[in-house]
């Protein structure tokens, strides 16, 4: 015991002597110079270490479009064409921008924003499901108050919902929120693990370095092979341009890709053709004549080519495109004005031909279509006079009968 203590005392002495030598040498070499050098070395070692940690972090895999969607064949003999409205409470005067997906049991799930008028604080996100061709009465799921509370930041209004069912079965809902006009918008994401019965995990997506403003969504996401997906979005302030947001299989935002910096191009509708190739079609917000543009990617959306003119115009309104059969595209759009909404077909995405008019009433508005294709059935929702959401369902046999 005593020996140990003596050893400890001896050890302390050694430290003490070393300390004196160190301090002495520091004086000899100029203590300020030494301290500064040590600080400099420590600072840069730490900085470089942190940089190496970030550099060595895992990057996401090279993306590939998922082509699990069944390529249909025109074998159904029964012609199907149905139209109906989604029932909503009578006090709703305004309904707009529907989005839809298909649940595991085959039901359709639709969401849209509705209230007294666009941009009013009473506007909320409404939801309904369609079982065996019958829509249930709509109910609210998301309000500005809910998003304010969940994201811990003030939100005045909500709009443009977009729903997507991931490969894992989770529903992801993207909602635009704003504190002022739509140019001051931000995107929020909510998840549902029970087929849309409850929405949770509300979070703000930080997408711009300028007050996180002016990113909106409208069109449906496209699936990737790794379980992730691309959400088409657009920037709408100073200049309007389209972007893609990449999400991983858990629905976490990963990366942002600008499609073009060309002004007045927004609301991209993306159609994958194979694992790497896809077309995108846009709403044109520019001066007359507003050409409807097509853009192509050959590396799964990481880089996009030049904008190509199609034979159609776009009257500054949203559109959707789907590849119904291999090399056969279907577009739901307003050809001249929002008073007319039509179906057009194309083989190359450049030359389009109108073949069926869904609505055509002068002075009215039929806009913001959304499309979902499954088996041989095509479901389309659109805003009917900005008062109700109309559902049109048809099958490939009907399309064939119309010369598709």
């Amino acid at each position, binding site marked *: 015991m005593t020996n140990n203590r003596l050893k400890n005392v001896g050890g302390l002495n050694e430290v003490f002597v070393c300390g004196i030598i160190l301090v002495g040498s520091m004086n000899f070499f100029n203590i300020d110079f030494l301290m500064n050098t040590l600080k400099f070395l420590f600072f840069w070692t730490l900085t470089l270490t942190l940089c190496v940690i970030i550099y060595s972090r895992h*990057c996401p895999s090279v993306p590939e479009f998922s082509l699990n969607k069944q390529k249909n064949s025109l074998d159904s003999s029964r012609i199907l064409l149905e139209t109906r409205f989604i029932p909503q409470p009578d006090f709703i005067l305004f309904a707009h921008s529907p989005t839809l997906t298909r649940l595991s049991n085959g039901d359709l799930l639709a969401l849209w924003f509705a209230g007294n008028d666009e941009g009013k604080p009473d506007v909320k996100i409404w939801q309904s499901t369609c079982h065996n061709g019958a829509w249930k009465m709509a109910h609210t799921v998301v309000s500005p108050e809910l998003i304010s509370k969940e994201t811990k930041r*003030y939100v005045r209004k909500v709009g443009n919902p977009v729903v997507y069912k991931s490969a894992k079965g989770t529903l992801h809902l993207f909602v635009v929120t704003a504190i002022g006009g739509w140019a001051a918008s931000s995107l929020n994401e909510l998840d549902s693990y029970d087929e849309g019965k409850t929405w949770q995990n509300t979070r703000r997506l*930080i997408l711009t*370095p300028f007050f996180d403003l002016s990113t909106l969504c409208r069109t449906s996401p496209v699936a990737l092979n790794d379980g992730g997906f691309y959400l088409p979005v657009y920037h709408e302030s100073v*200049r309007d341009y389209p972007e893609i947001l990449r999400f991983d299989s858990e629905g976490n935002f990963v*990366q942002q890709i*600008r499609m073009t910096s060309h002004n007045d191009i927004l609301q991209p509708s993306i159609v994958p053709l194979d694992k790497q190739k896809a077309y995108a079609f846009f709403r044109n917000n520019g001066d007359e004549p507003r050409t409807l543009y097509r853009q192509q990617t050959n590396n799964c959306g990481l880089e996009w080519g030049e904008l190509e003119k199609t034979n159609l115009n776009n009257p500054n309104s949203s559109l959707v495109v789907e590849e119904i059969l291999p090399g056969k595209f279907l577009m739901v759009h307003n050809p001249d004005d929002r008073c007319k909404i039509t179906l057009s077909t194309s083989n190359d995405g450049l030359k389009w031909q109108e073949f069926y008019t869904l609505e055509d009433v002068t002075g009215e508005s039929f806009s913001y279509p959304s499309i979902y294709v499954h088996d041989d059935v095509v479901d389309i929702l659109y805003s009917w006079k900005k008062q109700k959401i109309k559902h049109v369902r048809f099958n490939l046999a009907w399309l064939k009968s119309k010369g598709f």
Partner: protein
Amino acid sequence: MSTMANNLPLISVSLLCAWLVTGIIFHFSKFKTMRPGNRFIFVLLVFALIRFAPVYDGMSVAHILRGILGDLSITTMLLFLTFLYSEIRGCNSCYKINNALWLLIFIIGLTLCLSVFGCIPFDIYASGYFPKGLLIFYLITQALFRQLNKKFTIFWLLALVGYIFKVLPSPNLWDYLIDPVLWLVSLVCLIVFGFLKIKNRTKFLNPNFRFKTHYN
């Protein structure tokens, strides 16, 4: 999203607001002679009110400001924390940033803004998601900042630490380094500096101008 990532932006915005409010109060009133200990309690009280007191629909000033300003960067948070400390100590010159550094911050912020508004054909902000290239830029700016203001390099370094631990909701390194508030502060500082310089030059060019001599 972690609790830290959701709460830190609220703390940042509360610090900014507390600095503004207490700065005005301390500057224009009899609080000027208040002792640092009392100042600290006062600042803490203001901070707590901004952060927690419900003012509109159950939301505090911090919630409302966060809705308007977005999330502040780690750099801004630390900068305003230092400014607030200076205010508590009662010495405005405790931490000063020279104009060259403000200019550098302003240029970075301006470039980002031009890029996000589509005035520059490529997306600089997107380089912050997998910031391999951005790290080179970071090291260059860090070396420049070290020449201009050593304390600021610590903020810039801690922003990197914050990014590694994801203390903010954003996955983008830019959001940890800089934000529009910092950019606008740099712009205001540069304008004030420019204005003072012009004013002094005009005064000097005035033929009636006389140097004042002070005698003890």
